[in-house]
């Protein structure tokens, strides 16, 4: 199904790609931090505020009905996008970070007993680590880690060996934001279910690159961020299986999430509203639908194929350029189009600034994975991460900039 796609026409949908940075055309290779937004998303925001803006649910007026309808339409689209059984299993949050905090605080607190284990990997983003540290400290459960190998992958056998009967929750990143490694979550989910553990998947980096099917995966929870998926900032998703979500206590409380409120006690609303306290991020939810549509219209197969070919082009180009001072970090064979690296004798931060001088945006630093950096004995990397609108021309330009830098510091 891998039709060739017209990248020029895709680029034309992203106004920010016309920016000049330091007098050079912007080359945006910081997509793992946040993707750019197509016209359709920006226009949806504008159109909502120009025509429909109103607070949603339980209201008698037309604008509110319109806003409610559009808001819930995103949930329906999301259900299709991740193939959830029902849209009520899709909860809107602020982002992956909040989705994980919600599960740790609500589900973690519900099930974890002293001595129970929560299993993560050593490559987790802080957002999938610190919430578990805190709930373990509160409940007396113990954090365990699947180790990361020197190429930035995990060994499946080692991982499966960590899944013992004490493990109650496995929470792991599908794709590492720092290294790009794709983890073998399907087998881990099956094995975890075999001993009765539940599995939460951090899909922050996965969602824009390949198709998600929560029913096929059979994961128990999954977290997504809109802003990494061509959508607006300030919005995320928690997917959870109905029976789990239904049994969990609410996380935040207030308007929308209640059924009946008395001065001294309250009863709670149905899913998904039970977990959506307060006025939601209405405009961004509505615009997020256009981001999902953007990805679906191109198709995950085409996206993966374009990004993979970019990635191989990059690796090839690095080899041919014989950049001796350049050291790749994260060299697993199963990766998305993300490459971390160091340049010998130059701080990652300086490399970032020098590339920026050429208009190239990369991320530098620990990528919110300090324990992983420590494992590699470094305090950060330079990371280039690609999206559907990137091109081989941009990679050529990037390689030339790296050559110039390596040449200057010889």
């Amino acid at each position, binding site marked *: 199904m891998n039709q060739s796609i017209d990248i020029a026409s895709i680029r034309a949908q992203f106004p920010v790609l016309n920016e000049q940075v330091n007098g050079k055309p912007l080359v945006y290779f910081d997509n793992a931090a946040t993707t750019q937004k197509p016209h359709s998303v920006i226009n949806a925001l504008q159109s909502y505020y120009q025509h429909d803006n109103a607070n949603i649910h339980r209201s008698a007026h037309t604008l509110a009905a319109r806003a409610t309808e559009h808001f819930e339409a995103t949930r329906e689209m999301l259900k299709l996008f991740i193939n959830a059984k029902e849209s009520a299993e899709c909860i809107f949050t602020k982002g992956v970070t909040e989705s994980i905090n919600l599960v740790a605080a609500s589900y973690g607190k519900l099930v974890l007993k002293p001595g129970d284990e929560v299993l993560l990997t050593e490559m987790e983003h802080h957002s999938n680590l610190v919430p578990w540290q805190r709930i373990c400290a509160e409940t007396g459960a113990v954090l365990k880690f699947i180790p990361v190998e020197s190429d930035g992958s995990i060994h499946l056998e080692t991982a499966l060996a960590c899944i013992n009967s004490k493990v109650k929750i496995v929470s792991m990143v599908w794709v590492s934001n720092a290294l790009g490694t794709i983890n073998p979550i399907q087998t881990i989910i099956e094995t975890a279910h075999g001993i009765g553990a539940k599995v939460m998947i951090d899909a922050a980096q996965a969602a824009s690159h390949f198709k998600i099917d929560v029913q096929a995966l059979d994961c128990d929870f999954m977290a997504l961020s809109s802003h990494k998926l061509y959508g607006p900032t300030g919005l995320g998703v928690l997917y959870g299986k109905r029976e789990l979500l239904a049994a969990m206590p609410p996380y935040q409380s207030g308007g929308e999430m209640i059924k009946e409120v008395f001065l001294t006690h309250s009863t709670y609303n149905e899913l998904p509203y039970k977990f959506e306290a307060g006025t939601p991020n209405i405009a961004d939810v509505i615009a997020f639908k256009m981001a999902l549509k953007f990805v679906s219209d191109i198709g995950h197969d085409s996206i993966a194929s374009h990004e993979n070919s970019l990635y191989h082009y990059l690796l090839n180009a690095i080899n041919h350029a014989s950049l001796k001072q350049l050291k790749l970090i994260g060299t697993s064979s199963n990766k998305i189009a993300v490459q971390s690296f160091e340049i010998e004798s130059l*701080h990652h*931060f300086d490399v970032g*600034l*020098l590339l920026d*001088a050429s208009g190239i945006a990369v991320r530098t630093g620990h990528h919110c994975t300090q324990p992983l950096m420590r494992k590699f004995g470094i305090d950060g990397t330079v990371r280039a991460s690609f999206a559907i609108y990137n091109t081989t021309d941009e990679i050529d330009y990037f390689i030339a900039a790296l050559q110039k830098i390596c040449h200057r510091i010889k």
Partner: protein
Amino acid sequence: MKTINEIQDEIVADFSLFEDDMESKLFYLMDLGKKLEPMDSAHQTPEFLIKGCMSKVWVYPIFVDGILHFEVDSNTEITKGLVALLVKIWNNRTPSEILNTDLYFIAQIGMGNMIGSQRSNGFAGMIQQMKLYATAFQSHN
């Protein structure tokens, strides 16, 4: 010895050669950093670290015969170049010379544009710390 403003004018002239070539400006800064005298690593302690910098920058003041001398270092090359600029201007000056300086070169070379606002804050932190040392030694005198 050149005056503080003569040195500032030289810096401005040097940077103007690069026109809009940001990359060359950064390489130039890095070269400046490389030319710094090495800092005694015993002086690279947390108390001599500049607060508010994203990189690590140490500034160690030595005050002899009414004259201030700075040992500096950084873990990143460009920041080292930044602090080298200040050393170029302020090394071997009296506290009052330092305190009375109008650092016009910063605006004239378009520093904000070159290093962005966050690093500009760090740079301001270096200046502030060096001036604090000058104040301290001046009153000490």
